[in-house]
């Protein structure tokens, strides 16, 4: 009963959040003379988009590292698979020649966008439906490709223990990157060049016939997809399978003795986590408007791992919260540390290029060393609890 009530509040919370995002994005349409931060071109929205994308990847990593106790560092590799799958499938055929200009076109002379436009037309509502369906299908396929590769790799590497697993998955991601950058596969992967020209978040803005934006949805879309995926992950974690994952994390030997197949469940967790990492990778490609293997380095994996640690290993809401803080700090709030600043006439010492990242890594070390539980430990934010906290009267009644 309590369970049900909680899921309802959570559902309402997410809906409210999504509506709020739409409202925030479109404030400029209603209120002129808005403060700079709230105008559609503000860094706020870039940060929100990136954080929405990263939070999905962080939660998917947490499913594996935090809930199943598998220390995998292959996240960037699976994101790469997702990003390329999405990109290759959705670049319109008309653009392929230009995008693959070094390789005289792409081996896949096919595009989901074109396919759906063939069915629904490419104007007005039909075009919109075609694009939405194409993107959705491509996102799901991106996840599937990542999941499928995870399944293949899982056979050998999931037998390895903690840090060996970490280094093997890290190595796997590096191998993947080298393969995708290989010029010989240029007809498919565009070699070193980036794939671009596919639908991005901006394509979801609703425009009138003259091209002026009526309703902005470019921040809403990543929020929607990420929250849907995260809800699915949460449902999984709270299901019988999620409990089995946790039992493996807590004690493998006991889990096995209680009839939980280690290999099957580790594989499940690995494949599902990779599926969502793949979807996250596709979203990332939409965010940066290109897909290039160069971006998916082990540094990216470390970044996501640090987000998970900051949020608290074993807490979904912690991961989400930490992602927003992390992205906002590193890409927005702390940027001033990179340029010279003056207090009155005195130059603040130390501030110059690169200082932001130094401060940032010190903060991370402080968190890792002194607040090893992260922001949330393994607890979750519950909306109900928050409401109760802020309405003391109700609490007394209870």
């Amino acid at each position, binding site marked *: 009963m309590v369970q049900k009530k909680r899921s309802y509040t959570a559902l309402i919370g997410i809906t409210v959040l999504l509506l709020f995002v739409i409202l925030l994005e479109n404030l400029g349409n209603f209120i002129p003379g808005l403060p700079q931060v709230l105008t559609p071109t503000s860094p706020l929205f870039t940060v929100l988009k990136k954080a929405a994308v990263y939070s999905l990847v962080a939660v998917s990593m947490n499913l594996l590292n935090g809930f199943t106790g598998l220390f995998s560092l292959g996240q960037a590799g699976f994101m790469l698979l997702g990003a390329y799958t999405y990109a290759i499938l959705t670049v319109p055929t008309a653009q392929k020649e230009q995008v693959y200009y070094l390789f005289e076109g792409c081996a896949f002379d096919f595009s989901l966008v074109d396919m759906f436009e063939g069915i629904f037309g490419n104007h007005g509502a039909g075009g919109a439906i075609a694009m939405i369906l194409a993107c959705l299908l491509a996102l799901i396929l991106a996840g599937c490709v990542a999941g499928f590769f995870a399944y293949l790799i899982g056979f050998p590497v999931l037998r390895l223990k903690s840090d060996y697993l970490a280094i093997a998955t890290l190595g796997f991601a*590096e191998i993947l990157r080298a393969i995708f950058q*290989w010029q010989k596969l240029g007809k498919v992967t565009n070699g070193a060049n980036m794939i671009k020209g596919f639908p991005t978040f901006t394509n979801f803005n609703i425009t009138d016939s003259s091209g002026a934006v009526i309703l902005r949805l470019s921040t809403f879309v990543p929020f929607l997809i990420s929250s849907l995926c995260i809800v699915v992950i949460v449902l999984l974690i709270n299901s019988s399978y999620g409990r089995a994952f946790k039992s493996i994390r807590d004690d493998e030997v006991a889990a096995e003795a209680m009839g939980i197949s280690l290999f099957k469940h580790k594989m499940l967790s690995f494949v599902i986590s990779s599926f969502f990492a793949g979807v996250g990778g596709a979203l990332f490609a939409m965010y940066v408007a290109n897909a290039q293997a160069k971006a998916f380095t082990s540094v990216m994996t470390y970044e996501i791992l640090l987000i998970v640690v900051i949020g608290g290993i074993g807490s979904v809401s912690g991961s989400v919260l930490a992602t927003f803080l992390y992205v906002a700090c590193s890409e927005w709030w702390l940027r001033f540390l990179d340029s010279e600043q003056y207090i009155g006439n005195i130059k603040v010492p130390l501030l110059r290029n690169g200082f932001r990242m*130094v401060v940032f890594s010190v903060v991370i070390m402080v968190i890792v*060393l002194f607040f090893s539980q992260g922001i949330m430990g393994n607890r979750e934010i519950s909306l109900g609890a928050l409401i109760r906290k802020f309405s003391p009267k109700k609490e007394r009644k209870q």
Partner: protein
Amino acid sequence: MEYVISVLLSGISVGGQYALIAIGYTLVYGILRLINFAHGDVFMVAGLMGIYFTATLPVTASVPLVIFLTVVLGFTIERAAYKPLRGAPRMSVMISAIGVSYLLQNTATYVTGGQPMTYPVIPFLSDTVNVAGTQTKWVVIITPFLVLILVFALSLLIGRTKVGMAMRAVSKDFETSRLMGIKINSVISVTFIIGSALAAVGSVLFFTNYPAITPTAGAMPGLKAFVAAVFGGIGSIPGAVIGAFLIGICETIIKGLPSSWDVSVFSDAFTFALLIIILIFKPQGLFGEAATDKV
């Protein structure tokens, strides 16, 4: 023929440099069961210190100073970032190591301003020499011998001294050693000191040969050295050295394969593939001991 010799020469020298880093990994892993991700970056910092010191000091003074300060750095990292997490799960310590690596790289970017730095010319080591028709630097010739001497000294230290005995004991059984009155913390410190000193020596050799240092210069050699350590059987010093030479040579051979095959880009990927294969088929490495978990 000349070509084959030149490929082998660079393979051996690369392998030797990996070996010096790999020993640090294998010692630390043997005792703490920790992949010290920051080790490669300590190596990079040693290189940077080399640049900054030789700018003002003669080489004879700056090299010992670099070794000393690298040791201090290694020691400090252990005390500040790993010791507080001694009882914590292995994953936390590893994350801390990744954090330290991140910090060192970012600090290096800040200090150098992101510019690639040039390693100074070390007399003699940087001079060129002709071997069987191939011209190369002295450092290439010297590296393998120096590695062998250092490994020999190290095995004496571990095999014959009290500290060495303590190290062996701790790597066999952490808890029991503690109960037997071995000062765990000082043994671990000694391990880090040895590892860092070797990394410093390695940095002199490596950067004399490849003189451009960027903040990420330590990452790849670090990872490869770790693979070498796993390959040889983690915890085993001769294993790490042999693994390092094998990986170094294989890597240069792959790079040296005919361009028409276009496989030289996979020289790094090969190292990782090798790692995965060895982990699956012989997880204890070439010379490591198999461990069984107690239930």
